[in-house]
C-alpha cells in the first residue's frame, strides 16, 4: 500500500500553480511598491498619503465599505433569525432569494441598480406616481445609492454565515433561559446574540473586504465623479499609465484585505475560546 506521506504529493500541482500564479505575483507587487530603482523606499507611499485628493478617496472608500457592511448587517441579522425559524416552502423562498442573486453576476445587478436609480428611472417614476415626490430627485451618482446597491449585492454573504450559526444553535438554550425567567430582550442580548457573534464576524469581514475593493458597482452607480481606491487603481493602469501610483494603491488595498482576514480570524478564535 502506498504510504500516506506520498499522498501529500497530490497537492503539488494545485499548490505550485497557486504559488506561482497567485502568491508570487502578489508578493512581487507588494515588494515593488516599497522600492524605487531597486532601493527600499517609502517614497511612493509618502506621495500617496500627502496628496489631499488621494486621502479623500481613501476615506470615502473606507466610509462606503463600513456603511455598506452596517446596512447589510442591519438587514441580514433579522432575516437570518426569520430564516433559522422557517421551514418548508418559506425556507425554500429564503434560500432561493439568497442563491439566485449570488448566481447572477455583479455586472447584471449593478446595471439593474443603475436603471432603478436613474433620474427618469424606476424608483423616481414609482415615487412620483405614488405622489410622494413632485419632481424626480437625483439618486444615481450619490453615495447613498452606492451603499444601497452594494449592500444589495453583498447581502447573501452576510445572511448565510449568520444563518448557519443560528441554525446550529441549540434552540433549547433560549427556551431554558426563558423558563428561568429571562425576558426576551435579556435573552437576545445574553444568549442568542453572543452565540451568533462568530457568524456576524465572518459575515462582516467578508462583506467589508468585498466592499472595500468593489469596482463594477461604483463605476456603474456613481461613475467617475466619486472615485474609490479600486477605481483609482484601474484608472492609473488603464488610462493614466501611472503604474507606480496604481501599484501603490493596489498594495494598500491588499494590506487592508490581509488585515481584515487576520483581524477577523483572530476575533473569531477569541470568541470561540470564550464559549
Amino acid at each position, binding site marked *: 500500500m502506498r504510504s*500516506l*506521506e506520498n*499522498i*501529500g*504529493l*497530490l*497537492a503539488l*500541482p*494545485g*499548490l505550485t500553480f497557486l504559488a506561482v*500564479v497567485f502568491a*508570487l*505575483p*502578489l508578493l*512581487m*507587487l507588494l515588494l515593488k511598491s516599497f522600492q524605487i530603482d531597486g532601493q527600499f523606499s517609502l517614497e511612493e507611499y509618502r506621495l500617496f498619503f500627502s496628496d489631499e485628493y488621494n486621502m479623500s478617496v481613501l476615506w470615502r472608500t473606507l466610509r462606503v465599505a463600513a456603511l455598506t457592511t452596517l446596512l447589510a448587517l442591519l*438587514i*441580514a441579522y*433579522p*432575516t437570518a*433569525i*426569520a430564516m433559522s425559524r422557517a421551514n418548508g416552502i418559506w425556507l*425554500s*423562498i*429564503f*434560500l*432561493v432569494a439568497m*442563491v*439566485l*442573486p449570488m*448566481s*447572477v*453576476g*455583479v*455586472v*447584471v445587478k449593478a*446595471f*439593474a*441598480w443603475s*436603471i432603478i436609480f436613474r433620474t427618469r*428611472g424606476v424608483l423616481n*417614476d414609482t415615487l412620483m406616481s405614488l405622489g410622494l415626490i413632485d419632481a424626480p430627485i437625483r439618486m444615481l451618482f450619490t453615495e447613498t445609492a452606492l451603499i444601497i446597491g452594494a449592500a*444589495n449585492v453583498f447581502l*447573501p454573504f452576510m*445572511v448565510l454565515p449568520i444563518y448557519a450559526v443560528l441554525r446550529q444553535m441549540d434552540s433549547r438554550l433560549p427556551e431554558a433561559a426563558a423558563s428561568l425567567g429571562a425576558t*426576551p430582550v435579556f435573552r*437576545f442580548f445574553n444568549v442568542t446574540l453572543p452565540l451568533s457573534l462568530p457568524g456576524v464576524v465572518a459575515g462582516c469581514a467578508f462583506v467589508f*473586504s468585498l466592499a472595500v*475593493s468593489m*469596482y*463594477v458597482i461604483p463605476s*456603474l452607480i456613481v461613475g467617475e465623479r466619486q472615485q474609490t481606491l*479600486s477605481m483609482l*487603481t*484601474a484608472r492609473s*493602469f*488603464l488610462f493614466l499609465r501611472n503604474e507606480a501610483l496604481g501599484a501603490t494603491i*493596489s498594495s494598500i488595498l*491588499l494590506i487592508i*484585505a490581509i488585515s481584515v482576514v487576520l483581524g477577523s480570524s483572530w476575533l473569531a478564535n477569541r470568541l470561540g475560546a470564550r464559549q
Partner: protein
Amino acid sequence: MTGTDRLFLVLSWTIGLCCVVFLMLPIVITVAASFTSSSVYTLPPPEWSLRWYQSLEQRSGLWEAVTLSLNLALVSTAISLVLGTLAAVAVTRGRFRGREAIATFTVSPLMMPGLVVGVALLQFFREIGLRDAYWSLLLGHIVITLPFVMRTLLASMSAFDFSLVDAARTLGLSYPKAILKVLVPNLAPAYLTGGLFAFLASMDNYPISIFLTDARNKTLPIKMLQYLEEQPDPSLAAMSSGLILMAVIALVVGARTVGLNRMIQG
C-alpha cells in the same frame, strides 16, 4: 409566548420578507425592462416587445465575447476540478504537517481583492514575457475558479469514508482508478455545486479580466460594460436576462440534484 416575543418574531419576519423582495428586485427589474418596446427604461413598459432581443444580433462582437467567456469558464472550471480533487485528497488523507495552512491557502484567493490580483497578474505576465491574452485570461480564471472548487471539495471530503477507496483497491483497482470510480461519483453533489459556482464566478469576472484582455479577446462582462458606455439601450437588459436565465437553470439543476440547503453550505 409573551407580547415582546411576538413583537420580536413579527419584526424579524417583516424585515426578512422585505429582504427577499430587496434581493429579487434587481433581477425582476432587469427582466421586465428587457421586454419593453420603448428605447428608454420605463416600467411598466408602454408595450411588451421582443425587439431588444432581436437587436442583439446586430451587436458587434457580442457572440465572440459570449464564446470566449464560455470557453474560459468551462476550461478553467475543468482544470480546477482536477487540481482541486488532487489537492483535497492530499489535505484530507495526508499525514503531513501544515495541512491546515494548505487548505487555507487554496481558498485564500476568495478573500483577496480581484482588482489587485488582476494588477499583480498583469505585471507578472509582462515580467515573464507572456503576451498571449487567451493564456493570460485562462491562468487568471483558474485562480478565480480553484478556491470555489476547493471550498466545497474540502468540506465534503472530510465527511467521506475513505475506506471505500481502500476497499476498491483491495479489489484490484489502481489508486487513480479507485479515486475516479469511487470517490468522484460519491462526491457528485460537491462537484456539481463547486463546479457551478466556479463556472458562474468565471463568467461574471470583470476586475481580473480587464487587466488581461487585448483588443481581440474581450470577455462578456468587459463587452457589456463597454456597450453600456457606448450605447446604453435596453438591449443590455436583454443580455442581462440571458445571464439571469443561465443562473436560474443552474439553480434549478442544483436544487433538483443536491438540494438548496447543500448549495449554500459550499
